[in-house]
């Protein structure tokens, strides 16, 4: 039997352990400072722009961004670039239409907003269900990231009886319980600091290895140049390959395995990711392009609008002191995550040229999803420990990624349970102390639920799971928030119908494609989808029809029930849109209290 620790790379272990210890220590430290209910739910609404934008970025950049994007660029090429771009640009929609008004309204959570805007306790319940639903969807890929990364770190350990490696579930349980403890102790204020620091860990961990790798193995552009020219499809001219051959020679590219997509489909738009349905139907490359374009547009809509409808991101806007700060924060978030997202695709591009053996690996870190963790090891040949050190740094970044996103999700789900369900629905007369105690219990309940769900997703693709959460948010919360802030005639029934229809239909569509791919009893559906590539594309990426459908339903039903528009709608719209300096918010709250 091998000695216990000798089998684990000391650098990887050290860096990962430091990240975990720092997270826990900071959580404890700031837990002492979190005292009031407001500290727990919205960090006392007093987080400065710098801290808050780092914290939002830290929360947002999940395992999907840190590992999944690089893996997807490596496996699918150009089309996967839409993920990082839209993850970052979605914030623009949030900034333009939602951030300022939402903050001015002065609610604690999205369900608070839903109830306050429509004067409807029932709508709060619907909104709560969606918070929990999207939240749990989004925790699954984080849990998978945790399980897979820990299994990677301890892959060579040998236990008694010759069992090798660490089972997947250990990482899920370990990381899940550490974060649950952190959230239960410190609430929102506790994790704000932690997440802010974790952004900078991730930024450092993704950029430094790239700069080192580029200085040794040539820069980004040269690596792309090595994937020879030629636009796709019939209209190819006789391109000259001489320049590309030169660059390829300079890069010392390894031979691609058979599972890797060809250069031409990889580097050009409308490649393997977006043409899958059409290819399955046996269409030619030229015939499959329209489907591919459709897929691309639908993906863009889901990601851009989904970002603006993610509850765990939206809840963060309530931690700003005012609407102007909320706007400034959004701008900084876009800069921080935009800079970050330039790097993961570089890992994918370099991985394709330098570590093509990952194409042969199965799911998890042995496959392309693990390129961020594995790629720095190619430096080991030339520079010895440098490779292991850098790999240790990217492992630490991966830890920071799934820990920070998971804590953010846990806070928003716990908030929904403790504040909306317990504090508003079950026991509206509970004291602040009781609510705070409840926050802790709910954190444990949600954490345990997330860990349980994490056990079932080992075989799913990280980025795909996240994509679903985005598609559901884009077709349920986004239309709700957009219309509720800008259209005064929306009624509760209209909003609820649109949100439920959009959310459930897109979920059903996505789930049907998953079943067709994986379940044996859904064979008939699979055959049907194979012969109907248009239906398959629309089901896999439902945003392009589900979002307009949700908006249309909201408008039509609101028109039909126009007598139910809240009586004080002008005041509500004024609170949403008038600058805080006019002092309308306090007025609104006083009037509201007198009214009761």
């Amino acid at each position, binding site marked *: 039997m091998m000695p216990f620790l000798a089998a684990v790379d000391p650098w990887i272990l050290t860096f990962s352990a430091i990240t975990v210890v720092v997270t826990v220590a900071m959580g404890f430290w700031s837990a002492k400072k979190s005292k009031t209910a407001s500290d727990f739910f919205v960090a006392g609404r007093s987080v400065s722009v710098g801290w808050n934008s780092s914290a939002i970025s830290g929360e947002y950049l999940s395992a999907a961004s840190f590992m999944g994007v690089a893996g997807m660029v490596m496996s699918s090429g150009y089309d996967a*670039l839409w993920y990082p771009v839209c993850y970052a640009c979605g914030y623009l929609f949030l900034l333009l239409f939602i951030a300022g008004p939402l903050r001015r309204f002065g609610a604690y959570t999205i369900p608070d907003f839903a109830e306050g805007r429509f004067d409807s306790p029932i709508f709060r319940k619907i909104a709560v269900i969606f918070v929990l639903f999207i939240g749990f969807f989004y925790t699954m890929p984080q849990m998978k990231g945790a399980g897979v990364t820990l299994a990677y770190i301890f892959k060579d350990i040998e236990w008694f009886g010759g069992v090798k490696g660490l089972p997947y579930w250990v990482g899920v349980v370990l990381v899940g319980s550490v974060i649950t403890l952190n959230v239960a102790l410190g609430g929102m204020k506790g994790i704000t600091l932690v997440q802010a620091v974790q952004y900078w860990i991730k930024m450092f961990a993704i950029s430094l290895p790239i700069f080192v790798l580029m200085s040794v193995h040539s820069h980004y552009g040269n690596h792309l140049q090595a994937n020879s020219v030629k636009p796709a499809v019939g209209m190819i001219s006789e391109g000259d390959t001489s320049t590309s051959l030169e660059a390829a020679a300079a890069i010392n590219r390894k031979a691609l395995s058979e599972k890797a997509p060809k250069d031409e489909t990889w580097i050009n738009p409308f490649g393997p990711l977006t043409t899958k349905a059409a290819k399955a139907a046996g269409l030619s490359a030229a015939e499959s392009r329209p489907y591919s*374009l459709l897929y691309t547009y639908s993906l863009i809509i889901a990601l851009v609008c989904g970002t603006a409808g993610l509850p765990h991101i939206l809840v963060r806007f309530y931690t700003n002191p005012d609407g102007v700060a909320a706007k400034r924060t959004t701008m900084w978030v876009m800069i921080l995550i935009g800079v970050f997202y330039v790097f993961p695709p570089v890992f994918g591009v370099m991985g394709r040229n330098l570590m093509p053996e990952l194409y042969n690996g199965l799911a998890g870190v042995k496959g392309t999803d693990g390129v961020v963790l594995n790629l720095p090891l190619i430096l080991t040949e030339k520079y010895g420990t440098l490779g292991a050190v850098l790999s240790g740094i990217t492992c630490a970044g991966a830890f920071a990624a799934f820990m920070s996103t998971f804590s953010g999700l846990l806070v928003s789900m716990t908030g929904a349970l403790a504040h909306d369900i317990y504090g508003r629905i079950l026991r509206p007369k509970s004291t602040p102390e009781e609510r705070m105690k409840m926050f802790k219990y709910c954190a444990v309940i949600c954490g345990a639920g997330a860990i349980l769900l994490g056990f079932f997703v080992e075989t799913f693709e990280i980025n795909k799971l996240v994509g679903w959460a985005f598609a559901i948010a884009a077709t349920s919360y986004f239309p709700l928030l957009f219309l509720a802030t800008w259209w005064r005639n929306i009624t509760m029934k209209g909003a609820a119908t649109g949100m439920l229809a959009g959310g459930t239909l897109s979920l059903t569509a996505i789930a049907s494609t998953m079943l067709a791919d994986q379940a044996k009893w859904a064979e008939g559906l699979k055959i049907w989808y194979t012969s109907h590539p248009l239906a398959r594309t629309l089901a896999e990426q439902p945003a392009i029809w589900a979002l307009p459908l949700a908006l249309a339903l909201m408008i039509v039903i609101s028109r039909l029930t126009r007598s139910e528009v809240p009586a004080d709608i002008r005041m509500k719209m004024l609170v949403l849109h008038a600058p805080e300096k006019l002092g309308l918010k306090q007025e609104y709250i006083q009037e509201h209290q007198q009214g009761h």
Partner: protein
Amino acid sequence: MQPPEKPDIHSESFLHMLMQRQLRLSIACAATFLVALFGLPLFNYFAPELMATRVFGFTLTWLIVGVLFFPLVWIISWIFIRRSIALEEAEVEEVTRGNAPTDRK
């Protein structure tokens, strides 16, 4: 000439003006962004050779999506924030002009 009348912040016309101004700004910024975002796949579709031109080793479309798109979004959001804060200040100015804050309804 008399100074223009102070708008009543609880009036329908004030709310209308407020929302219209802000929405116009938001839509102008969103339109710029959407033209770029939705235009790019169209260029990829109809002008694949142009978009595959090599620039510093990148294909043109890769360079735009992978790198240049981020600064574009920063510029749009910077312009939006400057204008929207200026709008808010103008609104506050209009309402409070020449009136003591105690006058509030």
